[in-house]
């Protein structure tokens, strides 16, 4: 009986150590992930067509547009035409982090709700910043975001995002 008890106690103690190690390493891993995100910051420009009468937007307004809560430009009756970057790109991850602190996983879950209820389909994702500029240049009410280094005279920067 005593042997059995010792066996159980040893194993319970071993299990406890394993759980403690898992918790410590998980917390460490989470800190590492957070730190990685912090050092990877970029400057991102939210851009619109140069002929768009709207010349500036707040972070909240841009956030509402990119989460499909706002369908028209503020103080205007024109429908926004949103263009996106690739779904799991670093640029998109940084954009939402700087814009409204949402992680890509949250953004994807948020859009899954809109997409699969049939409410709103996600904006079309273009391959890179050059493709975004090209579409915005040709559409008066398009809005997108690009890395700040790609900005040229053919688009208007409506909001700058940086740490």
């Amino acid at each position, binding site marked *: 009986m005593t042997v059995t008890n010792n066996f159980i106690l040893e194993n319970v103690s071993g299990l406890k150590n394993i759980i403690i190690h898992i918790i410590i390493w998980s917390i460490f891993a989470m800190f590492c992930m957070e730190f990685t995100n912090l050092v990877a910051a970029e400057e991102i420009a939210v851009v619109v067509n140069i002929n768009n009468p709207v010349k500036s937007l707040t972070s909240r307004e841009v956030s509402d547009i990119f989460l499909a809560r706002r369908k028209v430009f503020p103080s205007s009756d024109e429908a926004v035409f949103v263009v996106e970057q690739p779904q799991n790109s670093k640029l998109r991850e940084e954009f939402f982090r700087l814009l409204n602190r949402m992680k890509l*996983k949250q953004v994807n879950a948020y859009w899954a709700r809109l997409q699969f209820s*049939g409410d709103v*389909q996600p904006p079309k994702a273009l391959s890179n910043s050059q493709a975004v500029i090209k579409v915005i240049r040709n559409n008066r009410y398009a809005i997108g975001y690009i890395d700040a280094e790609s900005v040229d005279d053919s688009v208007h920067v409506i909001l700058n995002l940086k740490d």
Partner: protein
Amino acid sequence: MDKISKIFVMILAMNVIIQLGEYSVTGNYAYAGDEIYDVSKLRLSGYGTISHTFDDRKDMTPIRDISKSSTSINDYDTNSTWRMDSRLGLQADYQFSPKVEFLIQGVLKDRADPTFTNSIELAYIGLKPFNRFNVRAGRIGYDAFLMSDIRDTGYAYLWARPPIEFYNMVAIFAINGADVTYDIEQGNVQWRIKAQGGESHFGIDMDNYTNDFEAGNLCTLTLTRQSGPLKIKAGYSQFTSVNEATKTLGPLHRGLEAVAAIADNLSFPDIKAEALSLRNNISFKDNDVSYMTLGASYDNGTLIAQAEIGRSAAYGYFMPNAEMGYLSLGYRIGDFTPYGTFSSIDPNSDVNKPVSDWSAIESESFHSQSIGISNSTRAEQYTYSLGLRWDFNNQAALKLQWDNTHIRTYGYSMWLWEGETFAHESKANLYTLSMEFVF
């Protein structure tokens, strides 16, 4: 040509007119260049859940919602199942132009009547004739509650499943009909008014028979207010249950009518009145059902809260007639979100009890059986849930959930049970491990 076909033809005609207008009047298509145009038209996507559920009861088994098949879960001794929450959804949407789209979504999951037609949960033409206006016609999602049109996409919400106390009786997933949405912006607040109309069909398994449930004259009206992370939604919905569950209830109805006739002949007015009351109250046919709900959700990136209260009203014992609600809180810590939920349902009717003595016509056993059936669809229970969601990937999450449910006497309609289980108060534990993904 039935009504639905007529609506389709009208919508297709409107589609052609609007598309012609796009090209000939403005000539200014919203997409730029052939490259963009090509990638913009068709999108294929989907979602899925692989889920295993364990319960600790040998005499009963849980029902996620009443459109589920009972043949797959009525093996009470089996305490685990893949069928309760597992499903796969595939979606295709085709954007004819910025103002016209077609969307179709099929969902493979356990259901009482698993036909191809029933598996198509969305198939509609969507039009945006004006800014802020959106019209959809065809098969559309039932949008009366915070979660009613997104219950299948587990990746989109925190829990293993929407609280059973609230959503078990809401078996309508899709409507054949149309809806209109109007969006209003007011500073940083967005309002949405949405109206839906149509009808819905699905199967309900009862006592080894699948009965066709038809919700006719269905209409819903919702008002939603979104302000940043806070969303508040109020809804009203009503429909008429058109069909009788004849396969299951036919013999009972005939028996009760016979008892009423015998009691009438033998001059037992109390027995006759009770038999006719049971006959009329144990019925689906021509029953008007209404739902009123108020819900709110909040997600600021760290704190997630959601609550909903609702009231369903209907005539008789067999249709939802209760008050239900839940409150859920979650807290994101990196990719992990622990959460807790309390959910409850209280019926608006008391337990049905015998009011006359049927021994006078030697039908005590049938009497007690009929009373038992009248109480079999009452739901009176509450659940405490604890869970953890782990977003291990940008498009996939693991969930672990424990539900502890307290079920009141004669309040077991959210379970399948055997014997006299439903005549006693009891507790049950449910453990769920699931993986959710989108693609």
